[in-house]
């Protein structure tokens, strides 16, 4: 069963934090990662690896998450190891390139771990709500005001339904003689008979839902109350404070 990217229930300190402080902390960590090198980077990676057990997430979860991203980690490493190529000498090439390759992969490794960690310790709708509230002050600039939780919610709501419809469509077309197995010779038939109906079905559903939402009182751009309770506690303030300090330090370093 696919355990990646889904909330892993638990009662740890990190689980109970407000999503906003976690989001800010993750951003701070990512900025620090990008600005770090050498031993600092290695230490930071170690800290991030330890985030999982600190949050009472099993080691196995961490390992399986990394496995899912193995190609994303290995390919850049190999590419960075091999380029720039040093005068037909393999040994020399590897020796000169491996610190950089390690840095690049190390950063990727840590970014993946920290991002997935966030999705494990926070429920998806709570993350979305957190993002939305963080973006509220930017509403005037045209970024917020989009009711992102609603959009995310609708995407989540429609995915299973569209899968189900596409199955039905495929059954209907199989009966009408689409030959099983997708080949180039019958690909246009396949594409027309599956994508067009799915397209129409999606539009129909969206139109019906739009009417239903208006009928239920929704008007675009309106303020909505949320079913998620978000409260910033002292621990959140602490984490946010530390994150801001970290970001400030990185900016200072670059300066």
């Amino acid at each position, binding site marked *: 069963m696919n355990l990646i990217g889904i909330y892993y229930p638990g009662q740890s300190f990190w689980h109970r934090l407000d999503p906003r402080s976690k989001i800010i902390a993750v951003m701070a960590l990512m900025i620090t990662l990008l600005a770090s090198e050498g031993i600092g980077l290695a230490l930071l990676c170690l800290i991030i690896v330890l985030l999982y057990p600190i949050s009472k997430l099993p080691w196995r979860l961490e390992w399986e998450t990394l496995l899912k991203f193995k190609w994303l980690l290995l390919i850049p490493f190999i590419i960075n190891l091999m380029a720039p190529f040093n005068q037909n000498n393999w040994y020399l090439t590897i020796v000169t390139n491996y610190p950089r390759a390690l840095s690049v992969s190390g950063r990727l490794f840590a970014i993946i771990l920290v991002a997935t960690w966030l999705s494990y310790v926070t429920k998806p709708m709570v993350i979305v709500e957190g993002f939305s509230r963080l973006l509220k002050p930017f509403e005037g600039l045209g970024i917020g005001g989009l009711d992102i939780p609603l959009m995310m919610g609708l995407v989540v709501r429609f995915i299973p339904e569209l899968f189900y419809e596409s199955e039905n469509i495929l059954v209907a077309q199989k009966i009408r003689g689409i030959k099983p197995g997708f080949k180039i010779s019958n690909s246009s038939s396949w594409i027309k*008979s599956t994508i067009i*109906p799915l397209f129409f079905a999606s539009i129909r559903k969206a139109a019906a839902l739009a009417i239903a939402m208006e009928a239920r009182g929704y008007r675009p751009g309106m303020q909505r109350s949320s079913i998620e309770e978000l409260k910033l506690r002292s621990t959140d303030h602490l984490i946010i404070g530390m994150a801001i300090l970290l970001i400030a330090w990185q900016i200072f370093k670059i300066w």
Partner: protein
Amino acid sequence: MINVKSLSYIYNPKNPYQTIALDDISFTINQGEIIGVIGPSGSGKSCLLRCLAGVLNPTSGSIIINPQESVRPEVGLIIQEPEIQFFNETVYQEIAFALENRGLARDSIEKIVETVLRKTGYRGDSCQSPYQLSGGEQRRIAIACVLALDPQILLLDEPTVGLDFCGLKMVEQIIANFRIEHKTVVIVSHDLDFLYRNVDRYLVINQGKITADFGKSDFEDYIELISKSGLAIPELVELKVKGIPDDLLQGLMDLGL
């Protein structure tokens, strides 16, 4: 004739979260029978139809239909809301699609389309776009698409959903035609009144197993079982049980109640 032996269908077989849709089912259907498959939701009825049609491969067991091919062309399945399958510009093209896939010649296709449109009582123009038709007419065209294949066995998955009175009558007419031509029909429906009017034999499926298999004349003996499965008894049967004389009942059946 359809012979089903020890048929099982399991979703996600290698997973601890597998779902058993059909559990070791066996039964036989003879040619010319009109059968109703009933049962609570989620009992595997749609899955059974899809296995019979050859669109789903059973996890174990066998289905033998005389004669047999991979996606069985002599079996026609009409899914629950068949209008979703439309993708062509005209009604003609929509129906011709299935025939073109079979490699038929242009004039045979034209003839078949004409016959099948007549059979489903479509009173429009075959150059119309299927998307501009009313719900009832779309259903007619969708049914015509499958009838064009001239199936010997017709499988209907909840044919009454979304239809008004006229639409229902059309479906009943098609079933009646199949009966006259001595062809087989298997209908999955939750509408027992509809089935009572049209069907000779009932298969009750509950949680993937067949819990009953009886003919129309024995309906009263199974009332308790049916109620326990969460289904509603057809009103005609309720009346019979209350003691209405047979000639009255016969009168209503002749009326097509």
